[in-house]
């Protein structure tokens, strides 16, 4: 549907500039930044409360996330995250790369790749709660407003990534 090849991406500086404009719009219009992990937390709690509502009510760190809304999902960040999903879908579809599959290096099989993806995700979920945000909410958003903690976080992310890269290099060969 689009002449663009599926391996073609935007020039990184152009992409970064566009991302910066989206971020700036969010700052000025909403007084909020972009994020992903906060909404993921809410989705996780909402799912948990479907299965075990009593468990959620017994833990104040889960229960109180709801604030004064009726649902854990009634929050700006959740709407923003739904938008991220739709935007990703739109971007992939219009570029002709909307396709079910598993992205992996030659060094790993599918099962191992998925195990790596999940366990890495688990680590990131834990880390994002400790840091009050992830690469979107702290590094990108907080970095742009020059928050000290966000810059500590951002440098630590790169340190952690480069430090661990050697150990998982076969996955990405």
């Amino acid at each position, binding site marked *: 549907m689009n002449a663009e090849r599926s391996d073609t991406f935007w020039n990184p500086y152009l992409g970064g500039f566009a991302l910066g404009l989206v971020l700036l719009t969010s700052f000025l219009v909403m007084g909020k930044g972009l994020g992903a992990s906060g909404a993921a937390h809410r989705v996780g709690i909402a799912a948990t409360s479907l299965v075990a509502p009593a468990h959620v009510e017994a833990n104040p760190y889960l229960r109180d996330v709801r604030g004064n809304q009726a649902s854990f999902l009634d929050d700006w960040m959740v709407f923003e995250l739904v938008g991220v999903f739709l935007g990703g879908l739109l971007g992939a579809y219009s570029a002709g790369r909307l396709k079910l599959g598993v992205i992996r290096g030659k060094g790993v099989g599918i099962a191992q790749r998925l195990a790596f993806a999940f366990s890495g995700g*688990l680590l990131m979920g*834990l880390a994002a709660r400790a840091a009050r945000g992830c690469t979107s909410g702290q590094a990108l958003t907080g970095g742009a407003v020059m928050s000290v903690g966000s810059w500590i976080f951002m440098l630590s992310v790169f340190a952690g990534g480069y430090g661990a890269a050697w150990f998982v290099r076969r996955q990405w060969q």
Partner: protein
Amino acid sequence: MIFPFESLDASSREVGLVLGLVIGVGFGFVLERSGFGRATKLAAQFYLRDMTVFKVMFTAIVTAMLGLVAAAGLGLTDLRATSELIVSWTYVWPMLIGGIVLGIGFIVSGYCPGTGLVSSASGNIDGMFAFGGVIAGTVLYSELQQIPAFQQFHLSSEKGAWFLYDLVKVPPQVLAVGFAVMALAAFAGAEVVERLVNSPERRVTVWKVAAAAFAAFGAVALLSLAVPKSTQAAPAEKPLAIAPSELARNVIAEPWRWRLEGDTAVDLSTGRALAITGGAAAWKSDPLVVSMTSGGGYVAPAPARPTGTFTKPKKKGGGCST
């Protein structure tokens, strides 16, 4: 001050939520088109083969930073108040350790939380597993918070709303331009690194480039040691010593203002500790003090100690004026 529109978080909340959806679509679309839905492309950043993550991220940061500072300069928004709305407080240790763990999770999974979702949206099952892991991790963290020691770590080293322009004592406008200049230099470096790592005729092994980068980062890190030192030393530049006789006169004049703690006297009106010249011994042998305490005509009143410990007032966040 026009921005942000506070009603979008209050009376017109529904409009704000729809705008959130729209902003999210923009975010997701740009991430996907920049190639952030692909684990192999993101992971290549950590092997220096493809610096797209770095380039996109820093271009975005500098763009939004300059835009926000410019908007504040035009009087459209209040930089500090808006920044305090946007970002969380600083918690040094949780953010440092959280950053390292997130970096490890990034290279293991091939995504960060947001890009994991974008990858899921483009049909990648590995992205779905990564984002599923993120969801599970955030809930697991809330379970761990029920352990008191863990919660203590979670709340440790809180610095309130803290910005780099507070730390280095440079106007935010100057700092933002400084970041822009640094970013341009770093982009030039990133292009060189990509060319060296990927060019077949000049096979520079990755570790050599990595070693050079680490040396450069290390040098910057060592240099930056001087920065927090100089700012932390700033309050200490003022003379922090007081002569026993001067202190004695002060104590007689305003006994409620002083609390003596061994070799130091705490000025309760400023919260500043002053070292007594010569220490506690000199204080006790000062003629005025001797006359005060030796049952002479003047008896020092019992120090009016405020109960509890004196803590410096801390600036709390939340510049919301609604």
